[in-house]
């Protein structure tokens, strides 16, 4: 059945307005999502990541401290067995083999080669070379 309306513009206007309203709602939703996301990204990069970096820097510091305090003074090779001689901060020389813990429990000797040893501190692998012995 045909439809007649002597005020067709009013009906059209209403639907136009409604469509605009819906478009506006969707746009504002999109905008708010974008704003929230950008704020999150900003905060993540400017605030959260530096904090995380700082937290991560702690093992690095401990590694640096370790390098400063402990020196590799020599390596003893006997057949397949290897020992490393490490000079501790208090002036003592300790002899360690791979798998031993050095002073602090977080530092563990992983590998001993003829010139250097690798030590695992806070999941970071550190290499001490024999030339450091000065």
């Amino acid at each position, binding site marked *: *059945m*045909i*439809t*007649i*309306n*002597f*005020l067709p513009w*009013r*009906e059209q206007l209403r639907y136009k307005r409604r469509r605009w309203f*819906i478009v506006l709602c969707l746009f504002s939703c999109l905008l708010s999502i974008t704003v929230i996301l950008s704020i999150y990204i900003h905060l993540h990069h400017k605030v959260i990541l530096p904090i995380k970096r700082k937290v991560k820097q702690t093992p690095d510091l401990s590694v640096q401290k370790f390098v400063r305090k402990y020196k590799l003074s020599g390596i003893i090779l006997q057949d397949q067995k290897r020992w490393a001689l490490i000079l501790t901060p208090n002036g003592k020389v300790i002899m360690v083999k791979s798998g031993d813990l050095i002073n602090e429990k977080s530092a563990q000797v992983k590998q001993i080669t003829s010139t250097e040893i690798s030590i695992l501190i806070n999941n970071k692998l550190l290499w001490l070379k024999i030339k450091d012995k000065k």
Partner: protein
Amino acid sequence: MFRSLFQKSQQSIGIDLEGINVVVLHKKRSEIKVIYTASGECNSGGEKIKFLCDFFAQHKIRSKNIYVAIPVKHTIKKELQFAAVLQEVDIKLQLKLEQQRYFPGITEKLAYDFAIKNITEEKQNVIVYATKQKLLADRLGLLCDAKIYPVCVEPDGFAWLRLIDPIQRERLTEDKVGVLLVVQHKIFKIIIFNHHEILYEHDEFEFDDVVGLVRRNLNHFTTSNFKYKLNAFYFIGEEDLIASLRQEMDLNIVSVVAVESKLLLAYGLALRGFDDHH
């Protein structure tokens, strides 16, 4: 959820300004319910405004889906032919500029609306409804005073037809036509229609012999429209009349709305709010 956003509002209001009758419908999950109705005997414009203001304030109605009718006696229906290339905007403009050509003898400004009936390669047949702008402005002014801004003003025949089951209406294709008779509250109305349009419409406000009126109108229609077959009769009004119509005219009345209510027109108007076609 989003679909409902794009759909029409779930509340629809029909206002019958003749005597003032209001029906508020609410649709929920394809179920239509009447939530508020009001009927008043208002003669002056001021009374009507007050009645409407009170009704809207009392029920806190905010929906702007308001539908109003204009009686058929105030409308002019014409079937016009335009070139097929013309767009709706062009037709609108042509009707406006050449009013005298299409509606000779009417000097007052007219408000139009039209629907395209069919299009061939060269021509398009357009059904145009027109009403006097002053009359429309008077009605709208009355509603505006009550701070009511309707979205639609349509000829009342369409509202009456909405009371008939749409499935039954859709069956009236090709040369089959239906007849709707409304006899109630000193109103006699006959509408002859098919699935697409209203073919004939007549109102009478002072009458005695309903059977004679029906017979006269049917004769009037059939003499000028040979190709149509009167297929189904629908009746709205007092039950007593049905028997006499059946007896005297041997009419095949398909359905009867034996409800004598002033609200029926407003109800039909409000139903437009849930009409999927517009």
